[in-house]
């Protein structure tokens, strides 16, 4: 087997068991490099979100969240921070009382006596791993984070349920009936795929104002319910359900709606699951439209709220990162469990 460095060969050669060529090594390097590129920024943000406020702006930063060890020393009211002190080639742990310029006043925590003055260049902090949970609990209690979370959950949940029902009904009509205008309506619905929100956001905003839903959670739910992607996905799936089942149900005296409810919906479950996942991700991650429609803080969704936070607390990264991580968590969990459905669903429809 040639081990040339030809980049084309590197990309196209298929793996053979038992041989490890340069191509394989390069492939693995690419993949591992890519994996690191994906994971490092996320992991870094995650680790940082656990750092206490004092630590987060330290440069150069520590990789893991750490904090100075505090110790109560008899004779001092407040706990003091522990430092490693090197004097005359000997290293000891001492507590810092105060720091004046380049000198630090230190005491031995075990035998507290008169503080001694030591050069700051001879000391280094004693740290331990911490998790600054207050980064997470503070936003939940002090700020409006819980409101944002509640709004996002409400919007995601309600919009997804309605998306499933409304689009499944339309897909049922377009896949299982022949009626005047069926093709035209299908084309009309699919053509709305071509009209991205960014193009109609200004007049769509006006419509929302017109129907009185501005600065209202329903104003971001209702306009997103009808989904051409959803209709298309469900219709393609329903086409594979044999018509004979519907005829059998008609012979069985089922009304058309009963056929939809009792026969079609249960049998469309896999496609509904895919659409549900899509819808959850869309609604959870939506930013521009809620940004336009929502104006008062108590109506903000998580994404809009996060954006507002970073404007207000631009230096309080410990809070911002913690909230970022909280909003990323549900998506990550969904992905972890449903990864296979999501990827095959997207590969199958070419949409997201």
């Amino acid at each position: 087997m040639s081990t040339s460095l030809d980049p084309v060969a590197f990309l196209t050669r298929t793996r053979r068991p038992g041989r490890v060529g340069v191509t394989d090594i390069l492939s693995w390097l690419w993949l591992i490099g890519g994996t690191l590129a994906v994971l490092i920024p996320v992991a870094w943000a995650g680790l940082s979100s656990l750092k206490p406020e004092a630590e987060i702006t330290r440069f150069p930063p520590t990789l893991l969240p750490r904090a100075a060890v505090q110790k109560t020393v008899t004779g001092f009211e407040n706990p003091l921070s522990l430092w490693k002190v090197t004097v005359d080639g000997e290293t000891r742990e001492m507590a810092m009382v105060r720091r004046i310029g380049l000198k630090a006043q230190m005491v031995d925590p075990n035998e507290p006596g008169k503080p001694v003055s030591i050069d700051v260049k001879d000391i280094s902090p004693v740290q331990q791993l911490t998790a600054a949970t207050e980064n997470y609990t503070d936003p939940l209690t002090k700020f409006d984070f819980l409101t944002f979370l509640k709004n996002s959950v409400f919007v995601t949940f309600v919009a997804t349920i309605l998306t499933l029902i409304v689009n499944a009904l339309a897909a049922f009509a377009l896949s299982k009936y022949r009626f005047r205008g069926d093709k035209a309506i299908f084309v009309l619905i699919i053509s709305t795929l071509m009209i991205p929100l960014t193009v109609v956001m200004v007049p769509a905003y006006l419509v929302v104002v017109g129907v009185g839903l501005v600065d209202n959670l329903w104003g971001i739910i209702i306009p997103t319910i009808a989904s051409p992607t959803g209709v298309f996905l469900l219709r393609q799936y329903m086409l594979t359900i044999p018509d004979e089942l519907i005829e059998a149900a008609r012979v069985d005296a089922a009304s058309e709606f009963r056929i939809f409810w009792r026969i079609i919906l249960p049998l469309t479950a896999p496609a509904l699951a895919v659409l549900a996942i899509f819808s959850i991700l869309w609604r959870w991650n939506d930013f521009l439209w809620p940004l336009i429609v929502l104006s008062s803080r108590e109506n903000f969704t998580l994404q809009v709220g996060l954006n507002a936070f970073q404007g207000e607390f631009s230096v309080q990264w410990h809070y911002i990162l913690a909230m970022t991580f909280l909003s990323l968590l549900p998506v990550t969990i969904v992905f972890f469990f449903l990864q296979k459905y999501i990827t095959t669903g997207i590969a199958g429809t070419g949409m997201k």
Partner: protein
Amino acid sequence: MSTPRIATLADRTLDFVMRLVEAPINGFEWLFGRKRMPYLFLAPNLVLFGIFTFLPIAIAVGYAFTGGTELFVADRPFVGFDNFRQLLACEDYSSPGSCRESLFWTAIWNTLWFVGFNVAATLLVALVTALILNRAIAACGFFRAVFFYPVLLSPVVIGLIWKWFLDRNGLLNAFLQMLGVPPEIFLLDVGWSRFFVVVVSVWFHMGFYTLILLAGLQAIPKDLYEAAAIDAASPRRTLLRITLPLLGPNLLVVLILLMIRSVQIFDEAWVLTNGGGPGTANSFIVQYIYQMAFGSDLRLFGLASAASVLMGVVLLILTLIQLRLGRRMES
């Protein structure tokens, strides 16, 4: 025999609720006949599409030709092509400063540069990754999942994560310091910030395009490669003569899709660059529309709509090309 009884009880309750829901719908069927039911089923969808998609299109056109700051089209004075004239009035299109709407032209040029670099970079990275993943590598599923993960994240989250990564006290600067390079505030530098907007965009979306290209690659019959191997074709020839031609239609679709999405860059760039900074270095066309319409108290809906209409036309052309390609691919 208590479980079946509970089951029937639950059944009955459900049945009762169902009957309440279906009663009016069945009433419609009884009144108008089974043949009319599809219209009823389509109604909610069509009403929503009508109100929130088709009506806005009509209004957008109305807005583009009216001026003032009034909200309702009827209240707005008709200004003909003034909005378009204002957008397009320019002495030298290559230098936005000479244009009447210099912000618009800055946004257009920024968007064009972004689209160019982003499309090229994403396509390259996605294609290489897809080709590697297609080589029946162990743990292919794991890598595919990892690369796909960012696709699911929200643009705001991604903007914030990267903002922190690129922060003055961020990991990148820490790493550079280890190498002895002085720290840099990347997002306040015009060149670096533009570069990282592309990096973040590639990072965000490449998994999606990888997935589509991978599906295309896996649809190429394996026996073609076996035949090529028997014919002793070199890897380069196999790539150029078999893989790429057969992947061609997928590549084109991905290319157009990428363009359509890149033109609409907004969310993650907005968060990452604090609204297009430094200055207007990362101000893109959607941001221009947003700012004209909602960003200030001016509410220049006319100008914003005119810009939307122009962008809509470009996107429509791209989409029609994509549909054409899609149809050709099917046949």
